[in-house]
C-alpha cells in the first residue's frame, strides 16, 4: 500500500515534466542558448516558491505525516566536486537534453532510444563509484 503513494507521486511528476516540456531536448537547447524564458521561468518559480516553503517549514517546525520533524540535510562543504561534477553533468545534459528524471519520463512517453542514454547514465554512475577515491572532492 505504501508503495502506491510513491508511484502516484511519480506519475504526477512524469505528467508535470511532460506537460511543462521540461523533458524536451529542444527546450534544453533553447535554454542553453538563452533564446526563451520558458525553462528559466520553470526553475526560477520552483526555486523561489521552494525556498519560501522550506523557510516556513523550518520556522514553524512543521512535522511530516508520520509526526517526525522534517529535516533538511546540509550538503557537504566543498568546491571541487560540485564545480567539476556539475560541469561534467552539464556537458551530458546539453548533449542528451535529459537529466536523470526526464530520461525515464521520456522512455514512458515513447522515446525508446532513451534506453541508450539510461544505460550510459548507469555506466557513468558505476564508473564514478569505481574511481571515486582517486578524484578530488
Amino acid at each position, binding site marked *: 500500500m505504501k508503495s502506491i503513494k510513491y508511484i502516484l507521486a511519480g506519475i504526477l511528476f512524469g505528467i508535470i515534466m511532460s*506537460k511543462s516540456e521540461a523533458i524536451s531536448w529542444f527546450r534544453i537547447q533553447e535554454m542553453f542558448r538563452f533564446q526563451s524564458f520558458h525553462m528559466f521561468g520553470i526553475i526560477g518559480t520552483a526555486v523561489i516558491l521552494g525556498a519560501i516553503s522550506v523557510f516556513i517549514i523550518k520556522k514553524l517546525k512543521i512535522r511530516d505525516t508520520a509526526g517526525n520533524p522534517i529535516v533538511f540535510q546540509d550538503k557537504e562543504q566543498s568546491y571541487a566536486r560540485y564545480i567539476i561534477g556539475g560541469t561534467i553533468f552539464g556537458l551530458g545534459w546539453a548533449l542528451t*537534453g535529459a537529466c536523470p528524471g526526464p530520461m525515464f519520463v521520456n522512455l514512458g512517453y515513447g522515446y525508446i532510444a532513451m534506453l541508450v542514454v539510461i544505460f550510459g547514465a548507469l555506466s557513468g554512475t558505476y564508473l564514478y563509484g569505481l574511481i571515486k577515491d582517486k578524484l578530488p572532492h
Partner: protein
Amino acid sequence: MILELIKQPWSWYFSGIMIVVVMLILLFWGKSFGFSANLRTMCTIAGAGKKVKFFDFDWKTQKWNLFFLVGSVIGGFIASNFLTNPADMELSANTIQDLQKLGISFNGGLNPSELFSLESLSSPKMLALLLIGGVLVGFGARYAGGCTSGHAISGLSNLQVPSLIAVVGFFIGGLVMTFLIMPLVF
C-alpha cells in the same frame, strides 16, 4: 473540462508551482526529492556492491524512490497517450534556425528524430553520442552529489551554497557542449 485544461501546454509558472508541489509531497512523507540517487540504487541491485564499496548500502531505504521512478515512466506514458495537444511546441524561432545549421530539424515534437528515433540508433555516431551523453550525466550527477532535482530544486530551495556551485557547473558544461562541442560533432 478539467481534462481539456490539462491538455493545454502548461505555462512556466504553473509548471514551476507543480514541481514544488511534488517536492512538498515528498517532504511531508519524510523523503527528500532527488532523482539521480536511483541510478546508484539500480547499480547496487545489479550487484555492484560486491565489488565497489560505494554501492554497498542497504538499497531498501531507497525503495520509495524506485517506486517514484516507476511512476514517472507511467506518467510519461499517460501524458503522451491521453494528455497531448495537437499543436506544435512553441519553440523559439532562433533556436529552430540555430539547430538547423547543426542538421537537426524541428518536427513540432519534444525530441528530434535525428537523435531519438529508432532509425537513428542504426547510426553508430548517434548511438555513440547518446551513450557518451548518458555516461556524462550519470558520472557528473554522482560526482556532484545530485542532479537537477537534488541541487537546482531541493538544494537551492534550502539555500545551499554547494548546490549553487553545482548549478553554475551545470551551466558551464551546458554552454561548452552547446557552443563549442556540438558544432564539431553534429
